[in-house]
């Protein structure tokens, strides 16, 4: 695929922790629309790859990245990109619900306040919108000043999603967002992801193949740091080109 404005292109990306290579010269194009899932057995590097898109890997001292990620005509990995600004547009939801020890309201307000938005009415407006987008508004609208820890695990994760949406990101990275949740909470998050696809590009890492099959348009299969296969989800799950992919999705390893 050629370089278009609506593509995120990973070019010959290698990521190392110290001397150990976690991602080995990966090339990949991600459509800037819909949902893309990264699958593969644990330790295959899928989270490491995800954390490259908003430079979260910068926060790990031993981690180094070689290669390019091109988006909107810029190389996201170059020194001229400020990760702090980037993360506003490429936001992230993590594996464990990681709410801040403050109120529900302040959790969502965080990303806005650090951008200098102090006005209550503006904040109120964006916070309500974000909570609605995260399917949480009706459950919390009466108790916005309650401690975020008073929410259930699934609600906390949706709060984290609302928090990430508040800064109006173009891309939402999700690192196994349901791995700490029960099936009912998981179903709710999956439904939410389906609804979000209209507003934001979702890139999700998942340990569950069925989840990838249910929610994603594109699927990327990684194995031991290498990209084995990438393509339309339907195709990957029905007629994979690589033998390894076939073995993995039929549960023969991983």
């Amino acid at each position, binding site marked *: 695929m050629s370089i278009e404005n609506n593509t995120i292109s990973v070019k010959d990306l290698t990521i190392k922790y110290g001397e150990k290579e976690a991602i080995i010269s990966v090339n990949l194009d991600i459509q800037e629309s819909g949902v893309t899932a990264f699958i593969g057995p644990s330790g295959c590097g899928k989270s490491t790859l995800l954390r490259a898109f908003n430079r979260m890997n910068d926060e790990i001292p031993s981690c180094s990245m070689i290669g390019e990620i091109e988006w909107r005509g810029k190389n996201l990995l170059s020194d001229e990109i400020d990760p702090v*600004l980037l993360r506003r547009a490429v936001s992230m939801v993590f594996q464990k619900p990681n709410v801040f020890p*403050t109120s529900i309201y302040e959790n969502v307000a*965080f990303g806005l306040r650090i951008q200098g938005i102090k*006005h209550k009415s503006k904040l109120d407006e964006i916070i309500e919108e974000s909570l609605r987008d995260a399917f949480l508004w009706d459950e919390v609208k009466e108790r916005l*000043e309650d*401690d975020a820890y008073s929410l259930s695990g699934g609600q906390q994760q949706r709060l984290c999603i609302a928090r990430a949406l508040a800064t*109006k990101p173009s891309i939402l990275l999700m690192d196994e967002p349901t791995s700490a949740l029960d099936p009912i909470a998981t179903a709710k998050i999956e439904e939410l992801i389906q609804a979000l696809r209209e507003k934001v590009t979702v890139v999700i890492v998942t340990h569950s193949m069925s989840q990838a099959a249910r929610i994603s348009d594109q699927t990327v299969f990684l194995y031991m740091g290498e990209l084995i296969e990438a393509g339309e989800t339907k195709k990957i799950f029905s007629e994979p080109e690589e033998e390894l992919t076939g073995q993995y999705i039929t549960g023969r390893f991983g």
Partner: protein
Amino acid sequence: MIESGTFLDGRAPRNRFTHSALFSAASLSVIASALIVYTLASGTIRFFEYEEATFFEFITGTDWVPNGRNPSFGIWPLLSGTALIAVGSLMISIPLGVAAALHLGEFASPRSRRFLKPIVEVLSGIPSVVHGFFALLVISPFMQRTIDATYFNAASAIIVVAAMILPIIVSISDDAIRAVPREIKEAALGLGATRWEMATKVVLPSARSGIVAAVLLALARAVGETMAVTMAAGSVAALHFDPRLEVQTLTAYIAQVATGDIPPGPATDAGFAVGSALFVLTYSVNILAVGATRKRLGANRGKMASLLFQIKVKLSMILERISGDIEYNLTQSNPFIPTKYDLFRRRKEKVSRFIVASSLFVGLAFLLILLQTILETGLAGIDLQFLTNFPSYRADQAGIGPTIWGSLWLITLTMLFALPAGVGAAVYLTELAPEGILNQFLRRTLQNLAAVPSIIFGLVGLYVFSRMFGFGLSLLTGSLTLAMMVLPMIVVTTEEALLAVPKSFRDAALGVGATRWQAVRHHVLPNAVPGIATGAILSVARALGETAPILFVASLFSKTAPTGIMDGFLALPIQIFFWTRHPKEAFHDLAASTILVLLMLLLILNFIAIFIRNRAEARRSW
């Protein structure tokens, strides 16, 4: 040969004697606490039996004139002196300490952390009498020149007390900051926060209960600090808050009683009443600190928080009305072009991180100036004659021979009492005692004992060991007093060493039929020896540098080394105290030389502790 029946009917042998011995060791903290309360209570009652003293005047009076024909015992001047020093030193050490902890925990590279952390540790190892020397002979002259302070002044005391409590604030805040889960820090960064915003908006609020505890413990320490304030702040109790002038703290008054500047009678017994006030004060602060540590992250914030939230909402609405509306683009922002506000954030990040990083260098500068002054003044005076002669009243002949011997005797005896008791108590509490009310009670007692200001131990030594038990002004009295003081420290370090031994070791022994004590004796204690030894050596260092508890019982005029436990004694810190206060300058140099000897001994002790710890870590196979 095992007789049949020994393990079938009845119980296995239970090491009854060992159990009760260990239980007694654990109960010593209760006895020590009882002695403290008894000493303070009976002394206070004695004080109020004098005609000159009334309880009402004591708690409401604003004049503290213990001497003269018409004495007056209103405690407020002492309280205000104490408050001035405590609040003043906290105002310096809270910002510095929290900033330093933030730098260590969030910004410093592992390499600079390895370099910076020892500054804090060295600072915490300097005895308070050394800080007193520095305050009186270096900082005070500076204050006299710059802010027109008097010879004795609160300002110099405030500065050294700040340096003394800084390590408490740094190390406890650092622990709290490092305990903040990595996940929520990542959440902040993932939302586009700078590291500074992450540190101030997420890490600090999450660590706040730990930081509050740190501040409260530092406050308790500042209130209880004796030597530096006695030496630098003076002995005139006056109700004012001017740091340039002389003040007397609660502790300093007790020390004044100890040094014999106070005639017998109500003025002396007033020391006990002041001691009671000091005890109540530090005890309450300590209780608050324990309460603060209990509060966990994410615990329900309750009504107070909800109220604060309402206030915040109101404020921001007012703010909004005043400042009008800023346009905020609700559409997606450009990730490549910083807004004006982003540029401001970048500058703020740089400046703030620089300021925070420099906080530890203030501590370093303090340390370097202190060491440099002492080396400059003291090094020349150290020779064989100085190390062997007796403390003559002629400066050119004076030495510290008997003083060194006194200190060595003192720490040996102290450890002889405190080590078995402390290790025994720790073994009982961690390994044998059933979890329950009794265990909790014993632990709480130890915690409280650890928080008692050292000068109060001095009162107990004087009243109980010296007078009641009739041990007089002897090594025995001095070492029992110090033993009471270091006991909690030994218990805590021993417990840590025991808990570091894997549970599986105990299970393995219990699984083949050992009693709990046998498991501990053969499988836990041997593996905990290096940890216990390290803790014991650090306790020796503490006892060696401590002045206040033995201020009452040291014999200033003994010219010979002690030969038995009932002899009078001198100790290095006491010698430093008296030579520093000597009007002749030649004796100040002697004090500096004595400080150097004391610091050398402390340095050696610390090196031994580090050596043992490192060797044990290298040899450990589990």
